[in-house]
């Protein structure tokens, strides 16, 4: 067995995302199935409007949040597997050299699916715990007849069994694909070659300082991490701002729920991304410290590049939540009275931006202390 449960435990990010996705989707889909059952009982036209609005909301929420989170979880899984293979190249290369086939090695990667299973099960169970409260909330003005909670086995299939199986299969398949390299390439320390950077580009233009150069190459070599940083700030920005609007549009509890999900997602992703960046650059940081680069310069070179990216994510999140709410209010609730007119909430944006900057800088400070502790001794012993 090449990889154990311990490695899979590092995929907690996927578990968290899967949990959030399944929690939200199960609640809304179950609600959707149950509300469909009472369609026949609706008499008044107003109730019908309300019913249609509820059905559309459930669909949109399921698709948007489910789809978004599913994509993120897949990217994260693939990233992890690639990262795992990259950091364990030597062991895997030796196994291959000994004559293990790709498939035989890759088979062990199914344990990566466990993280999905844990996440989805927790999300699924959580959804059923929250459901009575959620149903009451959705029908708090008694616009619709009583909606009873029914158990739909298909949801368990869609949101727990299927994702687990798919993620396990995907892990094995992707690992197999990634292992299809000559043994020597796996055994060799680093695969970077000059051909990737054409010479004329190096010669051109003014020369960058080493720290600036390193900042750029850190960004370039791990593009997935850039995605995660953008995603984290996107989640933070979209979910915090949306949760404030939700308070007015729907209910306070919906707002809080959204806020919590947003924060959990943002922090898990950010935490994972930055930890990976630092772990992946321990040697570089240690060498910079040996040579006399200050802690500040190390931080700027290794972490500095992600700051602008996080603002990009924040901006996308702002636009996204505005667009989504505009669409929801204009299309789904358009015939519905009592929903307040939706306008872009500037003060909320500012508050959430300030909070974001504060939290981001605090995190960076914490990590810069971690960078300070890295010493040459650690990498020499290894």
């Amino acid at each position, binding site marked *: 067995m090449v990889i154990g449960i311990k490695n899979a435990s590092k995929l907690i990010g996927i578990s968290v995302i899967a949990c959030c996705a399944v929690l939200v989707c199960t609640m809304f889909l179950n609600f959707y199935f149950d509300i469909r059952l009472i369609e026949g009982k609706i008499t008044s036209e107003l109730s019908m409007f309300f019913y249609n609005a509820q059905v559309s909301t459930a669909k949109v929420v399921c698709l948007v949040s489910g789809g978004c989170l599913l994509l993120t979880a897949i990217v994260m899984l693939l990233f992890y597997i690639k990262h795992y293979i990259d950091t364990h190249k030597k062991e895997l290369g030796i196994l291959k050299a000994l004559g293990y086939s790709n498939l035989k090695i890759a088979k062990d990667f199914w344990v990566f699916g466990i993280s999905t299973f844990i996440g989805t099960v927790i999300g699924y169970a959580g959804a059923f715990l929250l459901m009575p409260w959620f149903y009451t909330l959705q029908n708090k003005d008694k616009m619709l007849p009583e909606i009873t909670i029914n158990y739909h086995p298909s949801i368990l299939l869609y949101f727990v069994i299927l994702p687990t199986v798919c993620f396990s299969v995907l892990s094995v398949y992707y690992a197999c694909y990634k292992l299809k390299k000559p043994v020597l390439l796996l055994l*060799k*320390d*680093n*695969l*970077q*070659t*000059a051909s990737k*950077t054409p*010479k004329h580009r*190096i010669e051109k233009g003014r020369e960058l*300082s*080493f*720290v600036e*150069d*390193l900042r750029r*190459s*850190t960004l370039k*070599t791990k593009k997935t991490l850039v995605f995660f940083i953008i995603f984290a700030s996107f989640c933070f920005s979209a979910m915090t701002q949306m949760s404030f609007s939700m308070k007015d549009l729907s209910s306070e509890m919906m707002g809080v729920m959204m806020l919590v999900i947003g924060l959990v997602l943002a922090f898990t992703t950010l935490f994972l991304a930055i930890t990976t960046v630092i772990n992946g650059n321990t*040697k*570089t940081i*240690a*060498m*910079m*410290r*040996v*040579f*006399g*680069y*200050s*802690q500040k310069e190390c931080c700027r070179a290794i972490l500095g590049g992600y700051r602008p990216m996080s603002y990009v994510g924040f901006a996308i999140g702002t636009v996204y939540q505005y667009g989504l709410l505009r669409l929801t209010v204009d299309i789904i609730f358009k015939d519905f009275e009592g929903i307040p007119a939706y306008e872009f909430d500037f003060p909320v944006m500012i508050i959430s931006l300030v909070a974001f900057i504060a939290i981001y800088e605090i995190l960076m400070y914490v990590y810069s202390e971690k960078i*300070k502790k890295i*010493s*040459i*001794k650690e*990498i*020499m012993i290894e």
Partner: protein
Amino acid sequence: MIEARDIIKSYGNGESRFQVLKDISLDIEDHDFVVILGASGSGKSTFLNVISGLERPDSGKVLYDGKDITALSDHELTSFRKKSVGFIFQQYYLLPNMSVDKNVKMGADLADNKDYKTIIGAVGLGEKRHKYPSELSGGEQQRVSVARALAKRPRVLFLDEPTGALDEQTGRQVLDYICKLQKEYGFTIVMVTHNLNIAEMAHTVIKMNSGKISEIYTNETQKTAYEIGW
């Protein structure tokens, strides 16, 4: 001049506490070529790390021209390393995602040295400036790390088993480059090795044995990298 005074350093706690450096005192003259010789585990690397400002001793002083570096704050110590010392290790520790050029620039930037391409030429890698470490042989990688260390124009160059991972021919070549460059730039060399032959290249030889200095002697004549045995 570097003066080490009563250096003591231990590792571990309680039962497993182990004294690696047992009260070492020693002077190193400027521009000298010093080799620290000793068996594996005798504490050579630890001593090198202490006198170069990478690690702090439990007690004792390390004076550079009378200034005690063990009394410096972390920040001051970093800035001391930036200004005064260069390092070469057995594992080259090059930055894998950066070309030879950029690796050397890592050292050069610290001394505001714009002329770092000369030093790449001086270690015979002018043609391979744009290659990445993974495309170079072990000897070439070590030469890059020599260039990187010297590009920051250190007063003292510390080397920990620089040829430990190299074969005879490339090992000799690397040592030869280091000697030639010392004549040109005039830095002090403090080199750790377990290879008796390499000691013949040094002016001062310090023998270490289980955390203590057992012998210090100077060579009348220094051999070149191609004259010593291997």
